[in-house]
């Protein structure tokens, strides 16, 4: 496996590691961007208004759908309707499955993040004359960010791990090495593919951790440059919440 990874040809070739890494990233990014666009505003709205919590329940129920079955079902449904060159017929089912995976953790954590904002803080915000949108933007979102990030990180982990199935439908991505290696009995290639997926996920998680560090206010994360009169620190910093666990599905 090390040997396979050490061969520069395996990296730069057409359909080599660089190509597939980029393809894998693209599949994951499309799904994550769409999921964020869907889940973040919706989660903020549900958390802010306290209405529509059933949507979180529905999203969580979606987690019980088997990824492989869904992927096959969607492909089989779409195949007769999409004609001509291009990968749309493979990309659509893949992306839908990945989006369905990413939305539940994002939605649930966003809602939880907003709901966890101290009611006194929200009350103060409204009492100071902030409009609904301003409360969401200036108060609820910044304070919900740690949980939003934790949801995003678990969604990213799942999406990157699961994007491997793209290769099952004939797309690229690092799953290509896993499936091709298996099919052509090149186990070094297969194992290297699996390792690359894991590495990509870890790197993505690290990047998100850095992004989290720079976007979450220190007042919320509790990372203070100087430890002030700790004895008088009132509530002892923000509450530490266990991150919602990720689900692994492929």
């Amino acid at each position, binding site marked *: 496996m090390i040997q396979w990874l050490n061969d520069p040809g395996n990296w730069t070739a057409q359909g080599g590691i660089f190509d597939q890494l980029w393809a894998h990233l693209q599949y994951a990014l499309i799904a994550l961007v769409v999921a964020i666009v869907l889940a973040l505003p919706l989660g903020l709205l549900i958390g802010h208004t306290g209405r529509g919590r059933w949507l979180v329940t529905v999203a969580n129920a979606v987690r019980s759908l088997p990824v492989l079955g869904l992927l096959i079902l969607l492909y089989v449904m779409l195949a007769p309707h999409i004609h001509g060159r291009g990968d749309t017929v493979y990309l659509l089912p893949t992306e839908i499955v990945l989006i369905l995976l990413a939305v539940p953790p994002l939605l649930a954590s966003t809602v939880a993040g907003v709901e966890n904002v101290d009611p006194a803080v929200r*009350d103060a915000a409204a*009492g100071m*004359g*902030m409009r609904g949108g301003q409360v969401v933007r200036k108060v609820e979102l910044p304070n919900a960010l740690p949980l939003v990030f934790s949801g995003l990180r678990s969604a990213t982990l799942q999406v990157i791990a699961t994007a491997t199935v793209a290769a099952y439908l004939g797309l690229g991505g690092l799953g290509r090495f896993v499936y091709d290696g298996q099919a052509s009995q090149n186990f070094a290639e297969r194992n290297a593919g699996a390792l690359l997926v894991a590495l990509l996920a870890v790197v993505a998680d690290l990047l998100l951790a850095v992004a989290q560090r720079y976007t979450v206010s220190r007042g919320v994360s509790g990372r203070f440059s100087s430890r002030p009169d700790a004895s*008088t*620190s009132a509530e002892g*910093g923000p509450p530490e919440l266990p991150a919602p666990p990720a689900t692994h599905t492929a």
Partner: protein
Amino acid sequence: MIRFESVSKKYPDGTLAVDELDLVAPSGRITVLVGPSGCGKTTSLRMINRMIEPTDGRIWLDDRDTASVPTHELRRGIGYVIQHAGLFPHRTVVDNITTVPELLGQDKKRARARAMELMERVGLPAQLAKRYPAQLSGGQQQRVGVARALAADPPVMLMDEPFSAVDPVVRAQLQNEFLRLQGELGKTIVFVTHDIDEAIKLGDQVAVLRVGGHLAQLASPADLLAAPADTFVAEFVGRDRGYRALGFAGAGRLPLHHEHSVALGSGLGEAREAGVDGWVLVTDAEERPQGWLRTDRLADAASGETVVQEQLNLGGTLASENATLREALDSALSSPSGRGVIVDGSGLLLGTVTASEVLARIEQQRVAADGPSVRRTGAGEAS
């Protein structure tokens, strides 16, 4: 001025939180809403800035019907302080304070300058400006809450149990500073508390509410103590009413006795000489009382020892020359010698008074008074 005009709040489930409340909170004064939990005091307060919408009646802010103003506009013109301060955890102290000026689109630089000025005013050191709320103590957080409410200089302030989450010592400190601040600013304040002592201490007028949102009594603190409207108010105001009422009556010019005192560092022999009934008052070099020294057990003058701080009994309280009857009486009662120490405005010893002399003054005032109306502290002699 804030005027409630038969305001009611009825919840969809049928509970009546506030029932036909009529109330005026005069401009420049502190109106305290007090009552047991469930009496609708917070609901009433929150109806003023329409955090809760009344189901009936009107609330006027000067000559404007609050219902006619868009809520966010209304609220930006009203300072709002709540129990746990409700500071924004993600913003620094100074950013918290400039929130409303920012919402109003004011110049950022000016808002920050004013924020720093306000911090000083509420007793916060300037170096806290860049801290986050989680780095502050409860008392500091509450001060930031007050500064934040004052940032846009609103004529009206609503305060919902702002001091109830801090410990008694800090609470007393915050209350005193609040009164001082109000003396400077003269805001129209509606203040909610469940603590009758706080209500009596802070209120220019106190509205006692009973469960179901009925106004039981609206009166000055002294009147409230002297003449509760009914048994509910009487019970709510609680025990020691008579004693606490003394806090609203000036003691007037009390007959002071000259007190021989010795300064710290004097010889013990000198102190023993000066002692009356076994006690001598010890002052510092400027004649500011420091404590009482027991003289009947002092060693010989020959010992050459001197009076030191550690020997003093610190039990006695001091009363100023224009103290209330309560303070004067307490001074006498708490003194180990039985002689209450009276000081002038700069803390210098004026003389002493005994409990029986204060009681005589109380008796004298009671007879002279034409009814129970006793005016407020600081209003001069009532005799």
